[in-house]
């Protein structure tokens, strides 16, 4: 029977802490025999999402906590990122112009390219957002 994983992880709002969170997710994914391409996609997408949470939702404010929820089963990897900061402002978001290489602005674009499903929903219990990143365990085309 395929290994299923369910684990949670707390990290501080510090960009240096993203590396340890990536390693936590990778260790679980390897234990569940997830392929390298799916692990790499999840690691990059979570890096971008956590970077956005720390820099934008919390406006770089240290001393707060972000909760990660990882679920891996035989069909998919799902990572939830729960924060208590400001919500993502979808109306202000502009996708990058790929014909004009830029020195920034690719974070949300990469998350959406790398993941099969991305959802953001407000948390009722005291504010904040739950971002969910889902990557199916299929071969990359």
């Amino acid at each position: 029977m395929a290994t299923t994983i369910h684990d949670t992880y707390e990290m501080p709002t510090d960009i240096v802490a993203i590396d340890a969170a990536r390693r936590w997710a990778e260790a679980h994914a390897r234990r569940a025999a997830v392929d390298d391409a799916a692990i790499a996609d999840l690691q990059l997408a979570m890096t971008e999402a956590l970077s956005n949470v720390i820099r934008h939702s919390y406006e770089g404010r240290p001393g707060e906590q972000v909760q990660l929820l990882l679920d891996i089963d035989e069909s998919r990897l799902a990572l939830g990122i729960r924060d208590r900061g400001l919500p993502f402002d979808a109306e202000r978001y502009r996708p990058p112009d790929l014909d004009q290489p830029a020195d920034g602005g690719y974070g949300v674009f990469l998350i959406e390219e790398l993941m099969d499903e991305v959802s953001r929903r407000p948390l009722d219990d005291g504010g904040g957002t739950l971002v969910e990143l889902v990557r199916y365990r299929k071969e990359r085309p």
Partner: protein
Amino acid sequence: MDYEIENEDGVKVVHLNGPVDVSQAMQLREVLGEHIDGPGARVLVDLSGVPLIDSSGIGVMVTAHRRAAGAGASFALAGADATVARVFSLTRTDKLLNLYPEVEDGVEALRAA
């Protein structure tokens, strides 16, 4: 991420080791800026020890490329594995940046620049 700089036939090769993400971007921008220091400077970033690059890392490379172009210097990247190369490809920054499969290819190209 840590780094080491070697001079190979007049080309400064910046060997990066570890993930290049938002926590490293500022330091890397400064390091590359110091070495892209004027006309004739030749700087090659060796990505063969880099397992992950994020949008901040991509931004650093685009800035370095433009700085080099503005200063009359040469800048290139080499040795990206498939995972890292895919990020340049998805963002289409591979159309702007000079990317070589191997470090030796990059050194040779910059020597001839």
